[in-house]
């Protein structure tokens, strides 16, 4: 029943998003984490598009590909021992 009302595309991307979020949290090494987080961001962009929210997808795209990585990478670089 749960499956029936969802489009297969929606199913796939939802499962990928779950896996992505879990991976971001469980990746304890921040240098790997920022890469995983980037992938998670792209999954979210796809999900938002599937949910018929192009405006939100566009924001997430800009923020996830430039905003997050830049500040986080610099923070990682400055705090490396």
């Amino acid at each position, binding site marked *: 029943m749960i499956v029936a009302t969802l489009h297969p595309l929606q199913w796939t991307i939802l499962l990928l998003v779950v896996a992505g979020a879990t991976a971001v949290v469980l990746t304890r090494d921040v240098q790997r984490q*920022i890469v995983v987080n980037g992938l998670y961001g792209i999954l979210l962009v796809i999900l938002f598009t599937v949910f018929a929210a192009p405006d939100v997808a566009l924001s997430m795209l800009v923020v996830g590909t430039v905003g997050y990585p830049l500040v986080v990478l610099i923070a990682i670089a400055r705090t490396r021992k």
Partner: protein
Amino acid sequence: MSVAPYLVAGWICVIGIYGIVTSRNLIHLALCLTVTQSSTYILLLAIGYVKGGGPPIFKGVKLGTTAVDPVVQSLTLTDIVVSVTVLALILALALNVHKEADTINPDEIGELSG
């Protein structure tokens, strides 16, 4: 009952909080915070979704065509901006912590207690 998208949001919220509590690195913690926040985007957009609905943009589309809820999308936009700013603020604080304490493990800062 089709609640799968909501369950996804719930799981992401829970796993994000788990990451925050168990984190040993402030940068990791800040990213877990953004993961928790991403659960609110998914929840909001899933709530406003209408089966078979297109985006609430009526350019080249007849008015009255089924479209998803525009309000949750505007709320999500606000939410995303908030997440970037909070992430950057926490990272700025973390950078300063590192300068003073030479660690960014929240368990090791240990300046304030009691």
